[in-house]
């Protein structure tokens, strides 16, 4: 087991980690002393002020007008109700009773699953992998799995796409694209990007050779299913044929055939919803975390699942090793990383083992720095060399990113027990919000 005490002490005195060269981290005090790389990434600076949230009530004059979407039938019913008011007494009383009963039942349901009482936006913020989602200028980030291309979802509900090969950075906007909580590029495809939105799931088809900076909303497929919103997580199968989406409200997760726009709900009662889905890189297993202290691991051949009840809290974040045999996860309320090892021979693991301890550690140097805390997000790079961990902040350091050397760089190491070695604690300018594997 690896702990933070074994790490080399972090930088101090306003120094920040800039890049890595010759297996060493280079630190500096200003971000301008970058060494030129083969692709100079565009300067991505999104000032918080320019990004207005999409529909602030005070920013529009819409509130001054009455919304008039009622049908004629509804209006006439309303008029009848207003004018005549000849409802029989017993009908009013009995409807009131029924309403009270429904409210009581839903509050009972809500007490079983407290997350159901949250509003849509709060729920997305609660279960997002991004730290401090509701206030962050960048809501989500996704690298393309094959080329130098990435998508950034911003606070104003637009998505920008940057490509190393072209200077145009298309901006994607759609009427239904609200509160983006997750994005993922389709594997084995150049153009498709799945976006988890507030009410639905959007799949954009952004033609990489197109020069348009504002692709029309006709390029987006809208996938929605009644009762399946807000969508907080999406995952493409590594073979690129299926898309899985999850919503904390819906106990079923949806398996989509995107091109044909039909879906198969996979329902399991218990847990009260699905917050986070993640497909193992070899495509054989799928993790589905729920808002309760329970997560499931589906095998994707016959789509059966194993239940994994956690003791402490819900599974906050998880990632798979490149060969799909190991699952690392973190639990809310605990400062450790657990590992599960799956193998086809022995029928699966019996319990999870703790592989890293991230409890707060104080490094004494020029000024004492305390690092450690709960895990917000985990990401493992596809070669298996490094594991990046984003920690929730302490009051001193709002958040910190650390990485482990995970000793899975070579195929022959995949069979051996997992061994995490201390890597480095990276020092960033401001609070870091999210972490993604390239």
């Amino acid at each position, binding site marked *: 087991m690896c702990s933070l005490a074994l790490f080399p002490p972090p930088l101090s005195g306003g120094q920040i980690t800039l890049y890595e060269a010759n297996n060493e981290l280079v630190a500096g005090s200003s971000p301008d002393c970058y060494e030129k790389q083969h692709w100079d990434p565009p300067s991505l600076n999104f000032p918080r002020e320019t990004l207005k949230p999409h529909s602030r009530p005070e920013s529009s004059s819409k509130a001054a007008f009455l919304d008039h979407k009622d049908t004629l039938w509804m209006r006439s019913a309303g008029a009848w109700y207003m004018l005549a008011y000849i409802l029989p007494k017993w009908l009013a009383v009995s409807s009131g009773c029924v309403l009270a009963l429904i409210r009581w039942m839903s509050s009972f349901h809500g007490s079983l699953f407290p997350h159901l009482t949250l509003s849509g936006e709060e729920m997305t913020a609660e279960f997002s992998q991004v730290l401090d989602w509701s206030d962050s200028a960048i809501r989500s980030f996704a690298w*393309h799995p*094959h*080329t130098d*291309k990435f998508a950034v979802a911003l606070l104003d509900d637009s998505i920008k796409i940057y490509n190393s*090969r072209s200077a145009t950075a298309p901006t994607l906007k759609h009427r239904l694209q609200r509160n983006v909580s997750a994005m993922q590029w389709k594997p*084995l*495809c*150049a*153009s498709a990007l799945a976006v988890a939105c507030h009410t639905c799931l959007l799949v954009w088809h952004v033609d*990489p*050779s197109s020069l348009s900076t504002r692709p029309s909303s006709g390029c987006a497929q809208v996938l929605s299913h009644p009762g399946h919103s807000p969508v907080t997580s999406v995952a493409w199968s590594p*073979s*690129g*044929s*299926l898309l899985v989406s999850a919503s904390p409200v819906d106990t079923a997760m949806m*398996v989509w*055939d*995107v*091109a*044909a*726009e*039909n879906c*198969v*709900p*996979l*329902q399991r009662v218990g847990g009260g919803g699905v917050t986070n889905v993640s497909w193992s890189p070899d*495509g*054989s297993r799928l993790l589905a975390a729920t808002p309760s202290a329970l997560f499931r691991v589906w095998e*994707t*051949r*016959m*789509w*059966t699942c194993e239940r994994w009840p956690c003791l402490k809290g819900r599974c906050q974040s998880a990632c798979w090793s490149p060969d799909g045999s190991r699952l690392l996860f973190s639990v809310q309320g605990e400062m450790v990383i657990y590992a599960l090892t799956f193998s086809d021979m022995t029928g699966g693991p019996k319990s999870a083992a703790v592989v890293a301890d991230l409890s707060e550690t104080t490094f004494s140097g020029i000024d004492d720095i305390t690092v450690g805390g709960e895990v917000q997000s985990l990401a493992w790079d596809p070669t298996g060399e490094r594991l990046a961990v984003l920690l929730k902040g302490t009051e001193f350091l709002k958040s910190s990113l650390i990485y482990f050397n995970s000793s899975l760089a070579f195929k022959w190491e995949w069979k051996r027990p997992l061994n995490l070695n201390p890597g480095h604690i990276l020092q960033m300018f401001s609070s870091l919000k999210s972490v993604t594997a390239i």
Partner: protein
Amino acid sequence: MLSFNQDCWFVRKVVRWRALASIAWSVLLLPATTTLFVFLVRFSLFHPVEWISECFGLLMAASTIFSLILLCGVVLVIGFFNLEGYTVVPSIPCSRVALLAKVLHPRQCVHSLVHCTVGMMVMWCASVMAGGRYQALGSPCTRGESADAPEVCLNEYHVFLLLAGAFIGYSHSFLGVVQNMNYVSFQIIQQYKYLRCKGSLPWVLKCSAVQSLYAVRNYVALYFFFGHIPRAWISNSLNLPIDSSLHSLDSLTGLLDFSLLYHLWISGAFLLLTWYITVLLFRIYVTEAHRFPVQSTFAEDAEQCLPKVLSEKRTPIMKFLALQDLALLSQHSPPRRQEVFSLSQPGGHPHNWNAISKECLALLSDLTQRLVAHHDAVASNGRARPPSATSDTRTTSNSSVSSAVVSGTEDLPQTPRPSVLLKTPGSVFLKSSGRGISSPLTAPFTPDLDSPFSTPSLRHLAAQQVPQQGQWLGSVQSPHIIRRGPKLWSTSTDSQANGSALASPVPTPSSPPPEQKSSFMAQWLQNRKEQVKGFMAKRVLVVYLFNKLPEASSQALFADSQAHIWALEGLSHLVAASFSEDKYGVVQTTLPSILGCMLSLQEAVDRHFKLPHASSKPVKTSCSMGDSTYKTLRFALRAALKTSIYRITSTFGEHLNAVCISAEHQKRLQQFMEYRE
């Protein structure tokens, strides 16, 4: 469509047993649905204890047991029809008249008739179980002042329910045709049968409730207007007088009876639920993945092995399941992939791989040709012809290319003609010149000799003309003339006049006067027909019936594309796996042809999607048992094709530059390797 007499081992050994198992399960589920029905139909809000005890008493009663036995018989009949009528390749009518022909087909008539009868039986059971005023056909008359009134009168409520059963039975059968309910689609993921059934049951419940609501609406409207006819007929034939002191049901006061409508709705939902469950279980059972051995050690099992089964054309269900198995094995099971890549023991030939890849490539190039032919036809005509008026032929013969092409682009499906003629260079030009004159409105029914507008004599003439013209003119030009012959009916008379003017001055011994006369006759008929057509084209109804449905031709082209999707997935996964698993390099030899085939299909698909209506999405049907997966198969195929090519390029990377394919394909491949497609 399969029938019992087909001598295929798969149908005998697998499909039939699966159908039997599904029917057995639907029979076993009957008591549960019946209990549910009894509780709902006898529901009374104000006497809950009485309601429950009454229901339990009723469930034990002899009449209920008898009804259950009857319902078992009904389920057997429905299950039999499911097995007889199912298809994995939907038949898509391209115009409304083709749809009408499908509905009026004798086979369909039998289907509807049986469903009507069976629906009546179910409703009889329902009315017996509902009890009360629905119980029996006769009811004691309410005594008026006259003492000589008959003892037993007709119970109109009972008749009302029975007729509703017949109506719902017919509408089920009718909607089955319109929505292709006999089409069996395959799920995108594999699930165990029990879980799949459990997952779909709520949907089936909802579906039957909603459909029953629609049926009740239609039926009540129908009964309001025409209800007196069957009532009078039954009362006369059974000699049961109608009780005049009661309200008759075909009046507003009679029909606006809430409890009657509720009972009707619940009974209709019960009827549809039992049938839908049968359909659902049949679909689940028949689409379950079947594992075919890749190779067998015994010679007598050879025909059951994957390479043999893939090349089977007569049994579509077996071919589909085999392709599904191929796609699954290529993704999930390395040991079976090893068998595919293995060499034969004496000789060292990769027979398995060769057979499998050959069959998949044949399927794909088949589709490419079909698309190219369709595109050419559309490009030359300005609009496409429906592939065939009733594409039933294609579903049975599983889309042999030549027949599809002939019926898709040619105008005379009846005249026997070698399909080589299609490739005559002048054909496209001739077609365009011929069709250019006729207005787009008339195009749909111009060339059809089996259309109702052509008299038998015309058809006879048309069939005769082909050899005659071949005699008149030299054999060199004959293909063109043959092609032109039938076209004459659709164009103005000039080409025919030319043809006969050319022919008549040459006195050949083999052209006796009757033939001349027939040509004049033909011309006269031709003119008549033009007039009739001009007249008809102005009639809205005719245009409505004969106008081509948008995107129907596109749907029909891709009707069996599930097979192509699996072939693409299977091939690409196998090729990708061969990068590390293929010890002898058997895949390398076919890699150029696989890439070439996929790239040319990609080109054809891209071109097809540029046609009007091809890329428009179908409207979603909300709640019906009909499976509309076939409507979006073309999009699924396009996505699967791209993914497959990317899978190969991302696995092989730069090595693909060494594969020798044509320069054009190389260019396209480069696009894929740079992730620019």
